[in-house]
């Protein structure tokens, strides 16, 4: 059976440390956005901790929720792209062909999870830093959108390696950068089509829920709620 890659984030384990955010930056050559642009809201994060701060002082219920792209089964973003630059591959990973994107930002407005970012300017790195970019991931140009790819390049490499070693892809071969870094081990990644995988198992837990489930987008990122 085809793989169906998915992620489970256990909010009870998550410590709100933001390692996932930094790991994603390092892995995916996300542009450096300086203070002036950041103040305008041009920061790019493919995964971001979202704060929910509800109630009134002193009875506050606050949550921090790490949010990558949901890689929806029914993604709003794909439908609206006029040039098919956003697509889902056969395993359900929603990707972007950056070289085709015309930068209309229709997908960014359509995505109900606001996960997509836009390159308002040409990303630039000081020359001292250029060599340290991840060579497995292309650098985006100005004027195109970008978002979490489930570290698809890691899958490609893992496949290649498995093929070279003449074996099946093992569950631990393909782990995205954020999952790998997560110090509280709150993130799990794997094949949702495999009923015995850790992610499948967890997704059937009582605590499991999906973000904005009622929209019918069917995210492949599943959360486990906090508390008992």
């Amino acid at each position, binding site marked *: 059976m085809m793989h169906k890659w998915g992620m489970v984030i256990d909010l009870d384990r998550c410590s709100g440390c933001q390692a996932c955010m930094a790991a994603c930056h390092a892995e995916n050559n996300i542009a450096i956005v300086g203070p002036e642009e950041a103040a305008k809201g041009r920061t790019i994060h493919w995964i971001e901790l979202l704060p929910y701060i509800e109630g009134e002082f002193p009875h506050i219920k606050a949550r921090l929720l790490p949010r990558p792209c949901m890689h929806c089964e029914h993604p709003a973003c794909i439908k609206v792209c006029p040039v098919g630059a956003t697509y889902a591959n056969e395993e359900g990973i929603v990707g972007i062909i950056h070289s085709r994107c015309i930068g209309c930002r229709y997908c960014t407005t359509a995505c109900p*999870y*606001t996960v997509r970012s836009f390159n308002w300017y040409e990303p630039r790195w000081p020359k001292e830093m250029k060599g340290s970019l991840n060579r497995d991931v292309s650098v985006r140009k100005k004027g195109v959108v970008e978002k979490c790819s489930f570290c698809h390049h890691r899958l490609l490499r893992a496949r290649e390696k498995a093929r070279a070693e003449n074996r099946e892809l093992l569950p631990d071969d393909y782990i995205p950068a954020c999952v790998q870094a997560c110090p509280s081990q709150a993130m799990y990644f794997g094949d949702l089509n495999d009923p015995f995988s850790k992610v499948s198992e967890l997704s059937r837990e009582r605590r499991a829920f999906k973000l904005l489930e009622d929209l019918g987008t069917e995210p492949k990122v599943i959360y486990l709620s906090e508390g008992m």
Partner: protein
Amino acid sequence: MDPKRMSLEEDAILLQPIQRTGKAFYVTLFSLLAVILWAAWAYMYQYRNGLGVTGLARPIFWGVYITNFVFFIGISHAGTLISAILRLAKAEWRRSITRSAEVITVLVLFFGVGNILMDLGRPDRMLNILQYPHFKSPLLWDVSSITVYLTASSIYLYLPLIPDIAILRDHGGKYQWLYRILALGWKGTEKQHHLLERGISIMAILVIPIAVSVHTVVSFVFAMTIQPMWHTAIFGPYFVAGAIFSGIAALIVAMNLIRKVYHLEDYLRPVHFNNLGVLLLVMTLLWFYFTFTEYLTTYYGGEPIHMTIFWNKFTGRFAPYFWGMFLFCFVIPLPILSFQKTRTPYGTLIASISVIIGMWLERYVIVVPTLTHPRLPNETVLYSPTWVEWSVFAGCVSFFILLYMTFTKLFPIVSIWEVQEGREKSMAEVQERIKTYLPGIGVE
């Protein structure tokens, strides 16, 4: 003398703008050119540096350009649609105004499309739309329907122009070569007239559904997403009504200008303004009806995510825009248009300018607030358009005016032959027509 020329004497004033050009024209022309050049420079600046030079940011990905896009496409409904309806309704008073209306449509469409293109992060790749079209995207529906609309409106503008071009060709003067080509060998024969009339009526019929579809599809760009206060079925008719509303207003403004500048008081009479004023009044009420329905539905539904945006418009950050829209779209025009005494050229002008401003605000209030409050927590971003966006906007308006002016310098802005035809045939025709439906007359 050739009888045609003879008869022209009466309407010679209609050719005057083409034959004579005063200093005022050049002054206006150069001022407009200055603004356009400035805007072109602003756009080049944006092209080189990226969309970062606008005030846009996540999550407010769309702003003035998309507002302009919807706005200009809306204005475009002035011409073709109104003219077609009036033609089909055989409203005789239309004869002197259709041309000026149709021109608006054709010209302004370019600016609608242009704003979308200027909004692209990668305008250099815009041909990807043709190379890799993805028809699931409402944006592509737009591309298709606007193309069709533009084609149809151009034909629809062109067809009634042919006899006038022939007049210009025969009349001597500048650009003979141009008129010769464009006149397509028009000789005014019975057969030609017959063909032309048929062509025009077919186009008039065709153009109406196309026009309606265009603005419906524009609304679909928003309505097809699941974003709060966009995802609603009312958007299609709401947008179409709004489009006609702003279109009529634009037409009234244009007519006022032509009338003043080219001394066409005789052709564009108070009755025209009165009639259009009534139409605008109807649209004002219709606009109110739609707006009311739209917001009342949201309010009663009371879905939290919708309500955030609702209150944001009513009392929040966008209240000045929202209430500004209400003021300009409704409060100001309504009393002016309600009374015949104020439905003068001047009165309708004021009402129309107000409506145009109001309708731009309406587009803005539709596009931006929804984006400021996504479903998930997000950074608070205050969108304020930058000088680049304002410059480009000013450039678009100026360029439009410039093109419009130029048009009046090349072609008669009031259809000569239609006016003549009206004078020659209409009396009889109208009499005939009236007989067909008035009781007690003409029934054997």
